[in-house]
């Protein structure tokens, strides 16, 4: 069971600071721009405005219009030209303004971003990152709160990751930019303003999950906005006498089977938590593979707490739609406990 954060060798003295996730992302972009001329940022409003979430704040001013710039308003254009740039030696990092506004780029993502390396037998790789703020919990109107990870995770050739802490936001974004392959980098926008310690000398190896909390009775498998919910549920369950382990999946593709399988085998019970509609979802995949790989060790069926299979809820309905601590505790309650009546 690896805590797979690795210290970047090239880094100088450790530089740990308290930052928001948004700040950590901004810092990661700035550091990447500083380290390599190949890195470029572009998208809608990422220049002067610094992005609608201010993730690129100040970067155009600091690194110049050639390295951080606004494009015409066309997502397929943004991703498609990024493909061309990556073909020509750049490491573009593009921003999609909101989850649902990445859909116009879908063909480019599926038919080219995911496939060009394979198509050319590796003669061309595409070192590019598509940053997508995703998920709800911010009272956003329609099209601003989709959790679109299933579309990308299903697609062979894409690395799909999402951080849940400022540290991972920094370390994973740096790793994503360093990756020789295209990475879909999903930013849980609800967590943009959460704070934490960030050591900028750390990188997170993509493809690894992280044990966030140890426990012996049940394993909660979560990612993105579901991680803090899982942690809160673990605290609450502890009061009821259950020892709850929490794993941050964080790499949705590839998947860290080794860590997850070992974790669930150690407890014999599991609940998967994610905000996206549950049907044909990343949560389903986790439920399926854990059910299969831990079959002999399971005391109860693997449960799943997800968004409902409905279009994302309007702001006033959000609290009913989103997984919350109570729903997680309810799911834990169904796990065939010996102490049950």
């Amino acid at each position, binding site marked *: 069971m690896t805590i797979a954060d690795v210290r970047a060798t090239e880094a100088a003295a450790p530089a740990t600071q308290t930052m928001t996730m948004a700040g950590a992302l901004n810092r990661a972009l700035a550091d990447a721009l500083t380290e390599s001329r190949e890195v470029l940022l572009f998208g809608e*409003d990422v220049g002067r405005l610094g992005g609608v979430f201010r993730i690129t704040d100040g970067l155009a001013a600091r690194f110049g219009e050639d390295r951080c710039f606004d494009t015409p*308003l066309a997502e397929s254009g943004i991703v498609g030209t990024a493909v061309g740039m990556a073909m020509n030696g750049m490491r573009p990092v593009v921003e999609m303004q909101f989850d649902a506004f990445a859909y116009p780029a879908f063909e480019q993502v599926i038919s080219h971003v995911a496939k060009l390396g394979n198509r050319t037998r590796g003669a061309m790789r595409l070192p590019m990152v598509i940053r997508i703020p995703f998920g709800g919990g911010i009272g956003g109107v329609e099209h601003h709160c989709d959790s679109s990870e299933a579309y990308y995770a299903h697609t062979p050739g894409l690395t799909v990751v999402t951080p849940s802490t400022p540290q991972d936001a920094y370390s994973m974004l740096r790793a994503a930019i360093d990756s020789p392959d295209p990475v879909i980098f999903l930013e849980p926008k609800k967590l943009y303003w959460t704070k934490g310690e960030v050591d900028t000398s750390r990188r997170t190896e993509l493809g690894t999950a992280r044990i966030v909390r140890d426990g012996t009775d049940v394993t909660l498998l979560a990612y993105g906005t579901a991680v803090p919910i899982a942690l809160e549920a673990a605290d609450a369950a502890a009061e009821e006498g259950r020892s709850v382990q929490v794993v941050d999946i964080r790499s949705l593709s590839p998947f860290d089977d080794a860590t997850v399988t070992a974790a669930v085998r150690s407890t014999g019970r599991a609940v998967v938590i994610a905000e996206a509609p549950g049907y044909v979802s990343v949560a389903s995949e986790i439920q399926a593979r854990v059910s299969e790989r831990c079959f002999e060790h399971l005391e109860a069926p693997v449960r799943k707490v997800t968004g409902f299979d409905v279009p994302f809820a309007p702001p006033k309905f959000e609290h009913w739609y989103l997984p919350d601590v109570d729903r997680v505790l309810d799911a834990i309650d169904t796990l065939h406990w010996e102490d049950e009546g």
Partner: protein
Amino acid sequence: MTDLLPRDTPVQLIDETGSAHADEQYRMPASDILREAYRMLVEGRRLNEQCTALVKQGRLAVYPSSHGQEACQVAAAMVLGDGDWLFPTYRDTVAVVGRGVRPADAMVMLRGDWHAGYDPAVYGVAPQATPLATQLLHAVGFAHAAKLRGEDTVVLALCGDGATSEGDFHEAMNFAAVFHVPVVFLVQNNGFAISVPLARQTAAPSLAHKAIGYGMPGQRVDGNDVAAVLTVLTDAVDRARAGGGPSLVEAHTYRMQPHTNADDDTRYREREEVQQWIARDPLTRMSAHLRASGALDDEAEQAIREGAERLASDLRDAMNVDPEIDPEDLFRWVTAQRSPQLEEQWELLRGEIDRDRMATTEGGAR
């Protein structure tokens, strides 16, 4: 063929001072139409202000104001007949209300009560579209269906300058032209797509120059001159209704306020620029013009202002009442027939709600 090209300068009938200028091609609308337009301009402005205030008071989640663009909004509503349809965006609330939708119903999305709040078929107004340029295709398909049935519906589709960069804009223009359907595309070029200025959106001489590439006429109009927008749009609507096919109108206007209340426009534009556009305000010049021509006096102006105040206070009243929200609505409209999966999921949620309710009544916790 070059008759498909727009003019070098936008059509203008009434200048910034309120003076009228004759145009060889476009006629000044009748004065009762102009007075009605003015009334709607004042109401539109008042609606914009009221909504912005409601956001500050926390009664609306967000409001993309069309302050400064009311001439386009009003003209878009006025040129359509009862059987016609409008396909608006998030910024076009004033046009939506101009078509008869109750302001409070138009506010349902922005208030977070649901995704849309009026029955499109009642008003001939599609739900306000958020994903840019997507609604243009709906407009074309809608018009195509009408044409196939031999109806004389005209469809007016709205979008912004930024939206013209999207692939869907292109496909909509092209489908409209190839199928020769009765659609008028009105691009409100307000100079910005959030923070991105027009120069980053296009290198074309004008957005209206795109029309010839589809084989339809393009025209440019001063978007702050309601008389000009009215006459150019009327011309386009009449042509469409007569079977003359689609056309593209680019209205040059300006968004006087930030993109939405969540935006900070000091980051990307000079105050001076904003100031300059105040001089071109669509209301001032209309009022000056009507007063000069004797079509508006203090009394009439007063009546118009009072009407606008009523509209605003009705809206305030409506927004002070919290609508009933039924959680089952989450599952009710996804498909005509609810699936067993959604039935199960609603059962789960209902159980939680019932338990919470009981807990609240009994004062207990989970």
